[in-house]
């Protein structure tokens, strides 16, 4: 009842006569929760994201954002609550400069100019881009553009931010800064977060993971629980992180770790305490 967003038996297809892109998808996301969605190419992740803020509508089932049912009449309110950062840094930069881009969303929602100024300041500071006010997009790196995109979304003060492979087109350094920014946002603001990703290392930050396979929810659980499904994950076309692979090899050699490690530190801790625990 208190869920922020809820999918109830959603069926969706892009065109008539095609297969369902989503088949009977149900899940919910709580206030302040971080949910990661993973799955192979074409498993329906982006479709879910677009359904969440009314860029698409389901043929069957109902999507609820707080007390709003997502439909043609409510989309403008829904889009105030649900912000989205897309994959391509260039193709979501609307303004001619950084400030203009952050202002764009605020202008759309009819925010008075006085308030815009403070909101732009605050949101650019939240992503550490306050020194780039008047920069044009072609003078920014991909990672910086994505940070501006995050600021643009935050300025509208949404309650849920969706990142649809927002790090996919960045180099490792850019990825790391974006993930840091997301964590920072999550700590300082009252928002739920959905990250859609192929990079299973990014999954470890989430509270909960939804694994999609061929348009269906295939598994739901904590990152630890998901990585335990090592072999099945590989069967549906997902690579498990290095740490998980190490513990599987150890297991096959008869060395069982106490709990499933999800990052390097946990693996190290498991390893060096292995004998003392016994």
């Amino acid at each position: 009842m208190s869920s922020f967003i809820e999918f109830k038996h959603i069926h969706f297809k892009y065109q008539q006569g095609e297969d369902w892109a989503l088949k009977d998808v149900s899940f919910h996301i709580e206030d302040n929760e971080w949910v990661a969605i993973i799955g192979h190419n074409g498993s329906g992740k982006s479709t879910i994201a677009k359904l969440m803020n009314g860029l698409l509508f389901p043929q069957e089932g109902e999507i609820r954002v707080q007390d709003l049912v997502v439909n043609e009449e409510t989309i403008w309110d829904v889009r105030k609550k649900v912000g989205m950062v897309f994959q391509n840094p260039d193709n979501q930069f609307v303004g001619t400069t950084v400030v203009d881009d952050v202002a764009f969303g605020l202008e759309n929602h009819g925010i008075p100019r006085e308030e815009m100024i403070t909101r732009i300041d605050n949101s650019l500071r939240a992503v550490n881009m306050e020194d780039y006010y008047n920069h044009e997009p072609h003078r920014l790196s991909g990672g910086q553009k994505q940070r501006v995109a995050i600021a643009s979304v935050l300025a509208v003060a949404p309650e849920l931010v969706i990142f649809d492979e927002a790090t996919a087109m960045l180099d490792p350094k850019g990825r790391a800064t974006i993930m840091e920014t997301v964590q920072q946002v999550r700590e300082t603001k009252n928002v739920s977060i959905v990250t859609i990703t192929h990079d299973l290392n990014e999954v470890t930050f989430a509270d909960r993971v939804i694994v999609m396979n061929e348009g269906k929810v295939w598994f739901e659980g904590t990152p630890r629980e998901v990585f335990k499904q090592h072999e099945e994950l590989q069967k549906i076309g997902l690579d498990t992180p290095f740490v998980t692979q190490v513990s599987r090899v150890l297991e096959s050699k008869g060395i069982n770790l106490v709990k499933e490690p999800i990052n390097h530190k946990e693996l190290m801790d498991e390893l060096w305490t292995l004998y003392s625990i016994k």
Partner: protein
Amino acid sequence: MSNSFIIGQYVPGSSIVHRLDPRTKITIIFFFVIIIFFANNLLSYGVLAFFALLSMFTTKIKISYILKGLKPVWFIVIFTFILHLLVTKDGEVLFSIFSFEVYSGALYKGLEISLRFTLLILMTSLLTLTTTPISITDGVESMLNPLRKIHFPVHELALMMSISLRFIPTLMQETEKISKAQASRGVDFRTGKMKERIKAVVPLLVPLFVSAFKRAEELAMAMEARGYNGGEGRTKFRELKLQRVDAFIFIFSALILVVFFFTRV
């Protein structure tokens, strides 16, 4: 290259001309363009030339830089001048070269047209030299605003202009990337016959168009996701305010206008 394109020829500065509201500059230039056709003697041209030169010096931009920007039009000016000498046959014969007779009327007409042309180009380039393309867009939007009453899509037009400005450098970078990629596959854009060169452009344009359409689609979706719903109920971040300088410059220009009409015959 792409860098110089987005800002157009804009030269940052803090002169009075730079600080003027874009609407002031556009209005003055608009009237200048009309009024120049009313000039009919040396003195009235002198007044206009004085106004143009004064504006030019006020911008504090290096004269050599401004003149360099005018380079492409020198050719046209000289061409029309020569054309006039050859074609117009008014007044008395001044002299003749190779059996071509040059008339005095032709000389005056040619000089007059060249002067008009030069002044027009100078004034309009002062606008682009001292105003960023985006503030010109803002100015145009604001000035066209009354047309909304007759359902002229002012907001849409301005948005189109600003999105084009934003994507020009992106598309230029992409063009460069594709042309390098195609060159590495042996496509030669620079040498060969015209026909071959035109053919070589095809593998450049096709991917460019495909990618531009994809960008447009994604951009439209991103705009919608950020709550874009047409111009209705939208507030504006960029704000234009007329300052005291604008009032001063308007009055000054009006004075020049009065003087101008006195000098005419």
